[in-house]
C-alpha cells in the first residue's frame, strides 16, 4: 500500500512536469468519449435498451406478414377474432393483450376539441406496467366488458393543459370520439405507455368475435414467459394464424404472423442503417483516440526509458515496472474519462433538444431517455478502461522489456526508442487511415444532408399554415362523409376574414408517403422482374392552383372528377418526360399495383389529365430518383387523414386558435392537430438529418484534430530521436533541403497509405449505403479532393515544422544532443 503511494506520488510529479503531454492526452480522450457518448445516447433510444418497465426485455409485438413477399405489416392490423384465438391458444406469453398504437383520439370538453394520441388497450397490459394513477383508480377487468360504462384514464400533461389542472378531474365527464366518458384517473407525469399516448380507454372486445369483423384493428402486445425466446413465440403465433387461415381461407388470404421486438413495432422513425453508421463512427472515434493516446504514451515511455531501465537494474520486476507505467496512463485515462463524461452530458442535452423539436415533446416515446444513466456510465467506464489498457498497455509492455545493460552502459541513447518509433509509425499509419475513413464518410454525409436540406420543394410557403386532420373514426367510414367533412372545413375556413383559400392534401412536401408499383399499358416497364414505383397522393381540387403550382399541360382536377366518372390523375413533368419524351402524356393510362395481391391495395387504372411542375414529395434523405409522384383527386381516392393547407392574405398571427375553432364548428368530435406554418412542418422533416449532419461535422473536426496531433507528436519525436543522427549527416555535408525532404517523405508515405486504405474504405462504405442514402456519392469527388488537400496540408505541415526546427539547430549542437 505504501509502495503504491510512493509510485503514485512520483507519477503525479511526472505528469506535473509534462503538463502539455498530460493535457493533450486528457483532452483527446475526453473529446472522443464525449462524442461517442452523444452518439450512443442518440442511438440507444432506437431499441438497444429493454423497455423501462417490469420485465421490459420480454415485451414483443405481433404483426402480420404478407406471405407472398415476407414483408411485415407494420401497423395495427389484427382483428378481434385473431386476437382472441391467439389469447386462448398461445402458450408463449405470460400476458397477451392488444392496443391501438397509431392514431389520435378526439377529445371535446364543451368549447375545445383536441386530438391527443390516445389508445384503447387491454386492461391487463395497463396493470403489468405496475404504474398506479396519480389520482383516481386504474382500470379493472369490468371496465373492459362489453356494455360497461365508458371510462378513461388521462395523462398528466393532458390534465395540466387541456383540463387546466382542475382538481375535480376524477369523475369529470368528457366527450371522446363522440361518446361521453368518465375520467377515472390521472396517470403520473412521464407515463406515455404504449408509446407516446396521453389518453387510455379499455379495449372492449365482443366475446367470440366472428372472423370478418373488421370494425377495429389492433397490435397484439405480449410479455413472454421467462425462458421463451421471441423466435419461439413467433413460430407459435405463425402456426396459430396458419390454422386460422386453413379454417377461414377467405379472411386470412396471404396473411401470416410473427413476433417482433416491441420498439420495432411502435417506433415510427426507423434509423436502421443510420444507427450502424453512427455506431461505427463512434467506435472509429474511440479507436482514433486510443491510437492517439497510445502514441503519446509510447513517446512518453521512450522518454522515460532511462528511468525505467534504472528501475529494472535496481530489481523492479516487469510487473512493477508495468504498474508504474500503467499508473500514469490510468491517471490520464481517468481524468479524460471523467471530463468526457461531463462533456457527454452536454452532448446528450443537445440530442434531447433536437429530438424534442423534431418529434415534438408530446410525441416522444416513453422509453426515450437522454440522461446519463447506468448504461452510459458503464459504456464510459468501458471505453475509458479500453483506452487505458490498449493505449497504456503496449507502451508499458515495451517499457518492461527494455534491454537494461545496453542502456545503462552509457552512450547508447535511443536504443529502445528506435523500436518504439517503429511501433509509433504503425500507430500513426493506422491513425491516418482511420482519419481518412471518418473524414470522407462524414464529409459525404454532411454534403448529402446539405443537398437534402437545400432542396427546393417546389412549393411557395409564405403565409401558409398546415394542420393535420384524422378521419378514422367509425362515423367517417364512408368516403362520402369524409369528403363532405373536408369540403365543409374548407369552405368554413375560406369564409373567415384574412383567409385567402384552403386546400387539402394527403402529404406535405418532403414528408414521403406510401409507394406502389405501377405499369404503363402502352410501354413494357417490367425490367428484371421489377416495376417502377410511385407515390400516389390524393389532393383536393384546388390544391395546385391555390399553392400556385404551374400547370404545364392539360387541366387541374375539377368538381366533375368524382368516384362515378373517369378515374383521372395528374403527374409532374419529371414523370412525363421520363416515360413520354417528346410526346404528350395526356390521355395515357397508368396501372397502379398491376400484380394485385390479397391484403394489398387493389389494382387501379387512371388516365392522365394534367401535367404540373414538380413538387418534391419524397422523404429528405431517402428520396430516391426512381420514385415518381402521381396525384389523385380526393373524390376518387379518399384518404382517412391528411393536411389542410390554409393560405392567409398576410402573415397570420393567431392562426392556431382560428383554425381550431373553425374545426370545432364543423365537427366538434374532429380535431386538427399539429397546426403550424407550412415552412416549419416541411423543415422538421430534415431537422433530424441536420442534427446528424452537425454531429458528423463534429466527428470530422475531432478526427482532424486527432490526426493532426498524432502525426505531429510522432514526427517531432522521430525528429528528436534523429537529431544526433542528422547532425552527423549534416556535418558530413547533407544539405538542409535533403534533411527536410527526408521527413516529408516519411509523412507522404502515411498519406498514401491513409488515402488508399481509409479513403478507399470510406468510399466503399458510402457506396454500400447509397441504397439508404441515395445522394451520398453525389459530391464524393469534391469531398475526396477537399479532404485530400486538408490531409496533405496536415501531414506535411506536421512533418515540416519539426524538421524545420531541427535544421535551425547548428550541427555542432545536434552532435551533442541527448
Amino acid at each position, binding site marked *: 500500500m505504501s509502495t503504491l503511494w510512493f509510485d503514485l506520488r*512520483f507519477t503525479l510529479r*511526472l505528469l506535473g512536469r509534462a503538463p502539455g503531454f498530460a493535457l493533450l492526452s486528457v483532452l483527446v480522450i475526453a473529446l472522443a468519449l464525449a462524442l461517442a457518448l452523444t452518439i450512443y445516447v442518440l442511438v440507444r433510444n432506437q431499441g438497444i435498451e429493454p423497455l423501462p418497465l417490469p420485465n421490459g426485455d420480454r415485451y414483443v409485438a405481433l404483426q402480420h406478414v404478407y406471405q407472398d413477399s415476407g414483408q411485415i405489416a407494420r401497423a395495427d392490423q389484427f382483428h378481434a377474432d385473431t386476437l382472441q384465438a391467439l389469447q386462448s391458444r398461445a402458450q408463449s406469453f405470460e400476458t397477451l393483450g392488444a392496443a391501438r398504437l397509431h392514431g389520435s383520439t378526439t377529445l371535446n370538453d364543451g368549447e375545445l376539441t383536441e386530438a391527443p394520441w390516445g389508445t384503447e388497450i387491454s386492461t391487463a397490459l395497463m396493470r403489468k406496467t405496475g404504474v398506479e394513477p396519480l389520482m383516481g383508480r386504474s382500470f379493472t377487468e369490468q371496465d373492459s366488458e362489453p356494455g360497461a360504462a365508458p371510462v378513461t384514464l388521462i395523462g398528466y400533461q393532458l390534465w395540466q393543459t387541456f383540463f387546466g389542472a382542475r382538481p375535480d378531474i376524477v369523475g369529470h365527464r368528457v366527450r371522446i370520439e363522440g361518446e361521453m366518458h368518465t375520467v377515472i384517473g390521472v396517470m403520473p407525469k412521464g407515463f406515455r405507455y404504449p408509446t407516446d399516448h396521453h389518453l387510455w380507454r379499455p379495449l372492449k372486445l365482443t366475446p367470440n368475435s366472428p372472423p370478418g369483423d373488421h370494425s377495429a384493428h389492433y397490435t397484439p402486445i405480449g410479455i413472454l414467459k421467462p425462458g421463451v425466446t421471441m423466435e419461439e413465440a413467433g413460430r407459435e403465433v405463425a402456426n396459430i394464424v396458419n390454422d386460422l387461415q386453413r379454417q377461414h381461407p377467405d379472411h386470412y388470404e396471404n396473411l401470416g404472423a410473427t413476433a417482433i421486438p416491441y420498439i420495432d413495432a411502435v417506433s415510427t422513425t426507423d434509423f436502421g442503417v443510420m444507427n450502424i453508421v453512427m455506431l461505427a463512427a463512434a467506435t472509429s472515434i474511440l479507436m482514433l483516440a486510443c491510437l492517439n493516446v497510445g502514441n503519446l504514451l509510447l513517446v512518453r515511455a521512450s522518454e522515460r526509458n532511462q528511468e525505467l531501465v*534504472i528501475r529494472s537494474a*535496481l*530489481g*523492479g*520486476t*516487469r510487473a512493477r515496472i508495468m504498474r508504474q507505467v500503467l499508473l500514469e496512463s490510468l491517471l490520464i485515462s481517468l481524468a479524460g474519462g471523467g471530463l468526457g463524461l461531463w462533456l457527454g452530458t452536454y452532448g446528450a442535452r443537445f440530442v434531447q433538444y433536437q429530438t424534442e423539436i423534431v418529434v415534438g415533446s408530446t410525441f416522444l416515446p416513453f422509453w426515450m431517455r437522454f440522461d446519463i444513466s447506468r448504461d452510459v456510465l458503464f459504456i464510459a467506464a468501458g471505453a475509458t478502461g479500453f483506452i487505458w489498457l490498449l493505449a497504456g498497455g503496449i507502451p508499458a509492455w515495451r517499457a518492461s522489456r527494455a534491454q537494461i*545493460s545496453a542502456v*545503462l552502459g552509457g552512450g547508447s541513447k535511443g536504443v529502445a526508442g528506435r523500436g518504439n518509433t517503429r511501433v509509433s509509425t504503425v500507430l500513426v499509419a493506422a491513425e491516418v487511415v482511420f482519419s481518412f475513413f471518418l473524414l470522407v464518410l462524414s464529409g459525404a454525409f454532411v454534403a448529402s444532408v446539405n443537398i437534402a436540406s437545400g432542396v427546393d420543394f417546389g412549393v411557395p410557403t409564405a403565409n401558409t399554415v398546415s394542420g393535420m386532420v384524422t378521419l378514422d373514426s367509425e362515423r367517417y367510414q364512408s368516403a362520402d362523409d369524409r369528403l363532405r367533412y373536408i369540403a365543409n372545413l374548407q369552405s368554413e375556413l375560406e369564409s373567415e376574414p384574412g383567409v385567402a383559400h384552403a386546400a387539402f392534401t394527403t402529404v406535405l412536401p418532403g414528408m414521403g408517403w406510401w409507394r406502389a408499383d405501377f405499369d404503363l399499358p402502352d410501354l413494357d416497364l417490367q425490367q428484371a422482374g421489377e416495376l417502377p414505383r410511385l407515390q400516389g397522393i390524393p389532393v383536393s381540387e384546388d390544391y395546385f392552383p391555390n399553392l400556385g403550382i404551374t400547370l404545364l399541360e392539360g387541366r387541374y382536377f375539377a368538381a366533375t372528377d368524382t368516384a362515378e366518372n373517369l378515374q383521372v390523375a395528374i403527374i409532374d413533368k419529371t414523370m412525363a418526360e421520363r416515360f413520354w419524351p417528346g410526346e404528350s402524356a395526356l390521355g395515357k393510362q397508368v396501372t397502379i399495383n398491376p400484380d394485385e395481391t390479397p391484403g394489398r391495395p387493389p389494382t387501379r387504372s387512371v388516365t392522365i389529365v394534367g401535367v404540373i411542375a414538380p413538387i418534391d414529395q419524397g422523404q429528405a434523405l431517402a428520396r430516391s430518383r426512381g420514385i415518381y409522384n402521381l396525384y389523385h383527386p380526393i373524390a376518387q381516392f379518399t384518404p382517412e387523414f391528411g393536411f389542410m393547407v390554409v393560405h392567409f392574405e398576410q402573415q397570420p398571427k393567431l392562426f392556431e386558435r382560428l383554425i381550431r375553432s373553425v374545426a370545432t364548428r364543423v365537427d366538434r368530435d374532429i380535431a386538427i392537430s399539429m397546426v403550424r406554418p407550412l415552412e416549419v412542418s416541411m423543415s422538421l422533416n430534415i431537422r433530424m438529418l441536420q442534427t446528424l449532419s452537425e454531429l458528423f461535422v463534429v466527428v470530422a473536426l475531432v478526427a482532424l484534430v486527432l490526426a493532426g496531433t498524432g502525426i505531429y507528436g510522432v514526427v517531432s519525436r522521430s525528429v528528436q530521436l534523429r537529431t544526433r543522427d542528422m547532425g552527423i549527416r549534416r556535418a558530413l555535408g547533407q544539405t538542409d533541403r535533403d534533411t527536410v525532404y527526408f521527413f516529408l517523405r516519411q509523412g507522404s508515405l502515411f498519406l498514401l497509405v491513409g488515402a488508399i486504405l481509409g479513403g478507399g474504405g470510406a468510399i466503399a462504405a458510402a457506396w454500400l449505403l447509397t441504397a439508404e442514402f441515395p445522394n451520398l456519392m453525389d459530391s464524393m469527388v469534391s469531398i475526396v479532393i477537399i479532404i485530400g488537400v486538408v490531409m496533405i496540408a496536415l501531414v506535411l505541415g506536421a512533418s515540416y515544422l519539426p524538421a524545420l526546427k531541427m535544421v535551425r539547430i547548428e550541427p555542432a549542437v545536434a552532435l551533442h544532443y541527448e
Partner: protein
Amino acid sequence: MAQDALIELTDVSKVFYTEELETWALHAIHLDIHRGEYVAISGPSGCGKSTLLSLIGLLDTCSSGSYKLAGQDVAGLGAGERAGIRNREIGFVFQAFNLIGEMTVYENVELPLTYRTDLSGKARRKRVEEALDWVDIPHRSRHFPAQLSGGQQQRVAIARALAGQPKVLLADEPTGNLDSRNATMVMDLLDQLHARGSTICIVTHDSASADRAQRSVSLHDGKVVDDQTMAAAKRRREAEVAS
C-alpha cells in the same frame, strides 16, 4: 575453497549478434569471487569488462556456461527472479550515476526498497536515513539530483546501492565522471565498505583506484589473461619497471 565462493562463473561466454555479425564479448570465463573480497577488473577498452559486470549483476544473461551466486544456479532464471535477486543481493554503482531525475535524493534511495514486499514503510525510512547518513548527505534528502554535484550524486548512488544491504556491490567505473578529489572520496567510501566486510567488484581504468583492491583481474579480448592478488601484481609491476 570453491565451496565458500560467493560468485562462481564457470566457462561463461557472451555473444552479441548484430546484423549477421557476432561479437564474442566474453570467451570461456572462469572466475570465483569470495565473500569479503575486493576485486578490480581492468583491461583495454572493449575487452568485455562492462559485459562481465552485467552478467555478474544479472542485468544480462550468459550465452553459455554456468553462474552460481551464493551457491544458487542463477544462469537459467527467469526475468522476474533475476529482478528479485538484483534487488536483494546486488548493489550497483554506475559511471553515469543513473539517478532518476524526477525523484528526490531520498526517493532515489528508497526506490529499490519499494520493490520489496517484506519491508514496512517505517523499516524503509530507517534504512534510507542510515544510508544517507553513511554517505554523509542527510541534509540533501529533499533535493533533486540535478541540484547536486557529480560527487554528491555518486554518493547518493552508493547510498542507494547500500540501502538494500546487498551481498555484493558492483561498480562500473564509478569515478570515471569525477575529478580526483571526488574520486578519492568515493573510493574511500568503498574502502570503508570493504572494511565492514562487503564484497566489492569494481571496473576501473585508474590504477590508483585499482590499487585499493585486494585482487586484480585483467581481461583481454573477452578472456581472463591475469588474475592475482594486488601484492603479487605490484611486485610484478615493480619487477617489470626494474628490468
